[in-house]
């Protein structure tokens, strides 16, 4: 099957720093890929570049077989959703109104949000456990609840490709696992693609089909968790000793010493 999102020879730079070089990658339908690496290695920049929000330093990106540069922002937004690391809501709005923003690329210029759009937003809120708060003001939510609302907005957008920049930030342990399961199921059941940056290597090893480990010097190691999360390599990349704790019958745990 052809890839949902693919890049060839991709370069990502921030100022003088070449964060990613010669990166070849393809996100297949139904696949859940995790992006890991220390702070500042370019996880966010890579995701934003793949979303077409930052110009690539080199290389090409294809979304659904078309060159990303030839697609309008609206065309991209119908197929690809991006969850930024921070979201802001400077003006008063309810939780439901905020989730409904996700329908924007799907609604015609002259049309209003329909009852069907509202139903999609409510369904998304239910999936992140915010259905009871649909009428609440966003300003009254906690940090973790806001993060879940941003995820609900992405689910309301219902794209084929989900790019998420640290969606688990500020979430409690229960919701971390719940949302990872949600996205894994979303990929398996609907054939959507998920590419997510995250910090917890143990969770990454457990939920992702494949991992991309960035080292911040241009290198990117792609493969299964067992192959990528090699303690010696992790030690070099993170600059500290990282131990793999094998648990019988389960995916391994990772701990920095």
């Amino acid at each position, binding site marked *: 099957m052809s890839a949902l999102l693919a890049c060839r020879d991709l370069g990502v730079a921030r100022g003088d720093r070449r964060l990613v070089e010669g990166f070849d990658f393809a996100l297949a339908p139904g696949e859940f890929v995790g992006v890991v690496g220390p702070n500042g290695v370019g996880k966010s920049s890579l995701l934003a570049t793949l979303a077409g*929000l930052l110009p690539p330093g080199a290389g090409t990106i294809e979304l659904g077989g078309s060159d990303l540069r030839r697609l309008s922002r609206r065309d991209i937004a119908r197929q690809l959703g991006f969850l930024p690391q921070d*979201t802001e809501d400077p003006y008063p709005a309810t939780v439901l*109104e905020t989730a409904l923003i996700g329908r*924007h690329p799907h609604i015609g210029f002259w049309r209003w949000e329909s009852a069907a759009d509202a139903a999609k937003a409510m369904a998304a809120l239910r999936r992140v456990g915010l259905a009871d708060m649909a009428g609440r003001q966003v300003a009254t939510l906690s940090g973790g609840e806001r993060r879940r609302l941003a995820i609900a907005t992405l689910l309301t957008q219902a794209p084929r490709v989900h790019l998420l920049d640290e969606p688990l930030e500020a979430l409690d342990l229960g919701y971390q696992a719940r949302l990872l399961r949600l996205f894994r199921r979303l990929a398996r059941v609907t054939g959507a693609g998920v590419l997510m940056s995250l910090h917890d290597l143990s969770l990454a090893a457990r939920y992702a089909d494949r991992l991309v480990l960035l080292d911040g010097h241009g290198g990117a190691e792609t493969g299964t968790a067992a192959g990528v999360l090699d303690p010696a390599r992790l030690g070099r990349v993170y600059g500290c000793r990282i131990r793999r704790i094998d648990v019988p019958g389960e995916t391994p745990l990772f701990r920095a010493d």
Partner: protein
Amino acid sequence: MRRRILLLAALAAAAAAALAGSLFVGSVGLTPASVLATFGGHGTPVARALVLGLRLPRSLAAFATGGLLGLAGALMQVLLRNPLADPYVLGVSGGAAAGALLALLAGLGTAAATGTAFAGALASTIVVFVLAHGRGSWAPTRLLLTGIVTAAGWGAVVSLLLTLSPDTTLRSMLFWMMGDLAYRAAWRMPLAVLAAALALALPFARSLNVLARGDLRARALGVPVRPLGIGLYVAASLLTAVAVVEAGTIGFVGLIVPHMVRLAGGSDHRLVLPGAALAGGTLLTVADLLARTVIAPRALPVGVVTAAIGVPLFLYLLLRSREVQ
């Protein structure tokens, strides 16, 4: 949805009531019956001259100016993602005033003054935008500081122009600077600009809802952020320029009005834009009514009245934003 329509209907009713009220009240006491008679083409010549020749054009001019400022404020607040953004606070009105004064001093007409006012307003908007754009989002302190400095700079330019202006026109120019509707009661052009701007902006209201939640997010949701942003600059600057040429620098309407509308009906711009235009018009009509009656037969500049309402509210908003952080 129903609540929004109700709110807009209430605002329209308030606007109609304010406009009607402003016809009945004035420094010269006319009985309600004699005011009503003028509409049928009857009434005394004095009453007709007062109501149809003075009060009606002035009220419509006040309404149009208030609507322009309210809409300009609402648009700037999306652009800068900051509820404290307002054409007066950010020095945009100051730029327009300096531009207009320059044209008037040079002996050019009102049309040229509108052009130079627009140039001044646009220059201010661009300065504020370029200088205050912090990393990621708009830091409120940086934005306000840039605005204050810009406004102070224009204030100096205006003072210079006033010193250079002949004594005969100085008093009227000073009053115009403070915000006064007594000198020009041309209501057709401002009202037409207001209607056109609203009609142009409304189809983009849903895009503005997305844009209000951040550039990056808006782009990710398919909003053409750059062209829309440029459109917003130009529109906000033009609306401010027309309002300033009409009535000088009237402060705080663009700040108070969108805030009140949001408080009453939420932040959906399909409500906020027409709501801000209606409420801005109503506010300035009432403020002008107060300005010409409280110390009658003398009249206050209307800018004094809006400042009396706007300054405490602005300080309150600033205080509250500190508590939230």
